[in-house]
């Protein structure tokens, strides 16, 4: 199973109760991984309102997950 590193920000960080975690996952895509993590941590934000970045670049929710990926789920932004 791929092992991936997650980094959480803002509301997701608070709901996960941590800034980072490393997980071994059977999820094939970020979309599947988010569903898995949402169930575990009680994330209430639907994926439709998030974006996902893998290895510090925005990417598609269906991009295949690879071992060692650094994954960030991006809640609605509020800069400025």
């Amino acid at each position, binding site marked *: 199973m791929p092992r991936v590193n997650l980094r959480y920000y*803002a*509301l997701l960080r608070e709901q996960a109760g941590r800034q980072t975690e490393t997980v071994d996952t059977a999820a094939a895509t970020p979309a599947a991984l988010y569903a898995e993590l949402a169930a575990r941590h009680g994330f209430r934000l*639907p994926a439709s309102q*998030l974006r996902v970045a893998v290895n*510090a670049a925005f990417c598609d929710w269906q991009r295949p997950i690879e071992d060692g990926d650094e994954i960030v789920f*991006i*809640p609605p*932004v509020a*800069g*400025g």
Partner: protein
Amino acid sequence: MNAFEFSTAPVDAAALAAPLVRPAAGGFAAFEGRVRDLNEGRRVIALDYEAFEALAIEQGARIVEAAIARHGAIAGRCVHRLGPLGVGDVAVWVGVAAPHRAEAFAACREIIDAIKHRLPIWKKEHYADGDSGWVNCEHAAAHAPAAAGFDYSRQRALPEVGDAGQA
């Protein structure tokens, strides 16, 4: 000088503007976003900014450079604060030098709009009543999965990414 930077120290507008000025720059437009004491009817007393810094810096620089090129401006930059801020503090500063005022205003406005809507930066507001919340997140989370009231315009995909980047 990076076109987009984060700072945990107060913004020094004059120092930021100085390197943008050139003999060909007839117009210089600047914008400061400040912490208001009121947001959506609630009394704000302080807030915290956090960001996915590596991605925001890279995307922020692209936003600034694209706006400068598109509008025929000369130079521009943006600095965004991180960490705790009080009412009246400058949260974000944008400055653009251009040959004439039209290009300076247009590029400055485009940059601040994109910075606010597209960069991975988050703001937690602390209210006078003791409550607090992540702006644009709490409402969306509370109304999931319907999320009827969420403003999708604030969570657009980058042009470089396209709609495919959005779930």
